[in-house]
């Protein structure tokens, strides 16, 4: 295809855009500005909204988390009190066992000393009687 210089000059010469061009351009500018507005405000919200604000806007979530936390603390506290109770019972049981053991040991010690006393006196008595010169008395006592 061949273009002459005149064709090109004709094609590139200034043209009048018409009367409504400026209005159209301004209208498009306003339109794009209004489309970009939410995108501009979003980060603003993020920076301004604190942690608390997030929860304030979601009361259901806040209630749910609070309920879960309460439940967790409640169960934990109950478990701990149960554990303490079990521990107390175990310690009391151990103390009771130790006391019973000590009482048994005491009774055994007393019984053993009672046997020791009885046997010691028995042996001493027999030895004394054997030393008795009078055979008749000795036999009588035995």
């Amino acid at each position, binding site marked *: 295809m061949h273009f002459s210089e005149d064709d090109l000059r004709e094609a590139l010469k200034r043209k009048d855009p018409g009367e409504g061009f400026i209005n159209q351009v301004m209208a498009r500018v306003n339109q794009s500005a209004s489309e970009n507005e939410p995108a501009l405000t979003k980060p603003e919200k993020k920076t301004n909204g604190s942690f608390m604000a997030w929860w304030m806007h979601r009361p259901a979530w806040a209630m749910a988390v609070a309920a879960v936390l309460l439940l967790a603390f409640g169960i934990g506290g109950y478990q701990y009190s149960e554990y303490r109770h079990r521990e107390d019972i175990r310690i009391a049981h151990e103390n009771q066992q130790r006391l019973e053991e*000590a009482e048994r040991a005491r009774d055994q010690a007393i019984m053993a000393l009672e046997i020791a006393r009885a046997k010691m006196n*028995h042996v001493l008595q027999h030895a004394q009687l*054997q030393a008795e010169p009078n055979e008749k008395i000795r036999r009588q006592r035995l």
Partner: protein
Amino acid sequence: MNLATRKLTQILIAALLCFSALRGHGQDAKLQLANLDKLSEKAARVTDVTLDGSLLQFAVNLIEKVDAEDKDVEQLKSIIKNLKGIYVKSFEFDAASQYSKGDIDAIRSQLTSPRWTKIVQSIEKRRNEYNEIYVLKNGDKVGGVVILVAEARELTVVNLVGEVPMDKVASLERHLAPGEKHSDKPKQKKESGHDQE
């Protein structure tokens, strides 16, 4: 081996010998009575008491807690506080000659060491009675006592380890049990302590 090393070795050997001697010193008042356990099957009544270490300490602590107003309890405390072990084996038989001479000899053979002294012996051959009291001397003090009562239908060995005040043991009152002083239960108590029948 230089002089310093030789000296050190000698000191170590001396310390080891002292340690083993001290160990033996504390232990030899305790007799081995396990050979008598077999008599339990034949005996009509068995009393077996083994109290030492923490168990004896428990008993001592409990007895020491009792109010010391009573003379007997006070005496009991003074006896038990220095004891390291109380071992009693007593067998009563329905028939005579249920134990052998070997059973008694096994006990006597442990009392042959020069530290043991036989202080009392009473023999009644017609009745087949052999009663003996042995004492282990630790210097001026008594480190242990063995009372051996071998009669036709009874064999009793009492072994007290530790500082034993003989006079106090012999003069103990019958009603010793701290909680049962005003009752006539000591005999019952003694029988209830008999482990096997």
